[in-house]
């Protein structure tokens, strides 16, 4: 039977993640700078008649755009940065091969200050090994008819599928 090893993160995947992260970071910086410029312009154009409305507008713009930047920064840029670091680790570190039937469970774990992962069970005739996979690659792994996985530091880096 022909074997085929499918990498969960190829070099192209890592490059694509880096491009997406840089684009998102640039967009957030531009959005934040534009909002700040608008608020400064509102402050410069204020007078006794419109001061209350101008300040309210500046506070609303600054708050809402700030929330968007916080959300995008934490769950977009930072999450992608961690995923890129994780992908690089998977590609560079030594791997262990584990044979067996691969099942991606619904158990989701958020590693504090790091990535969110799903639990994977690899069941052979003699034992069941429990490893982890990045949640963004869990679906891809679940769709593969994998007969073995390659694991680095307890995380699935690649799967071997029977052809």
């Amino acid at each position, binding site marked *: 039977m022909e074997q085929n090893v499918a990498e969960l993160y190829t070099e192209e995947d890592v490059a694509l993640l880096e491009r997406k992260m840089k684009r998102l970071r640039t967009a957030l910086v531009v959005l934040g700078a534009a909002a700040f410029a608008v608020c*400064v312009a509102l402050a410069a154009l*204020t007078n*006794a008649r419109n*001061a209350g409305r101008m300040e309210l507008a500046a506070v609303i713009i600054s708050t809402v755009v700030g929330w968007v930047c*916080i959300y995008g920064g*934490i769950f977009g840029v930072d999450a992608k940065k961690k995923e890129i670091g994780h992908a690089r680790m998977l590609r560079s570190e030594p791997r262990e091969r584990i044979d067996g039937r691969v099942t991606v469970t619904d158990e989701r774990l958020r590693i504090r200050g790091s990535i969110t992962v799903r639990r994977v069970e690899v069941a052979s005739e003699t034992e069941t090994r429990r490893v982890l996979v990045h949640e963004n690659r869990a679906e891809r792994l679940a769709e593969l008819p994998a007969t073995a996985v390659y694991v680095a530091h307890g995380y699935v880096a690649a799967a071997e599928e029977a052809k």
Partner: protein
Amino acid sequence: MKRVLKNILSQLHSFALWALMSVLLWGWIFGLATDTSYDKKVMIYCHVPELRDVELTMALEDDLPESIKMVQVHSFDYVMFDTVSIAQADILIIPAVDVSEMRDEIVPLEGDGGAEAYDPDTGEGILLDYITYGDEAYYLFLGAGSAHLEDGIAARIAKKLLDM
């Protein structure tokens, strides 16, 4: 959607902190943008139940002395925790009951007593388009700590208020 909501809830403290910082930051910046030094502004404080401060400010800013950049009209509520501002006031409109209590912070416009701003018996008074008075007599005084006593600007604007 559920995931987005979960993410938002996990960072609720960051969003709340940012909103608070935003209010404080822009409050401070707009405070700077709408303020100037004591010698370039005239501050009017009114201890009245209702004050249309923006409208009165606009009416006074149409014709200011050259050295004055702005007029600030505030109710006493505005300075509840800031007695320094009251001490620096140029003009005060206060009820009769406040006069003895504030005797060190006020000086009469002319003569001994304050200029009458509102008579509750007749309902006649100054600035009735801008001020709703209570059921007592109100008087207009200059502030003892005013930066515009010597240059006469406080008295000039006070007279303008009496004529409006």
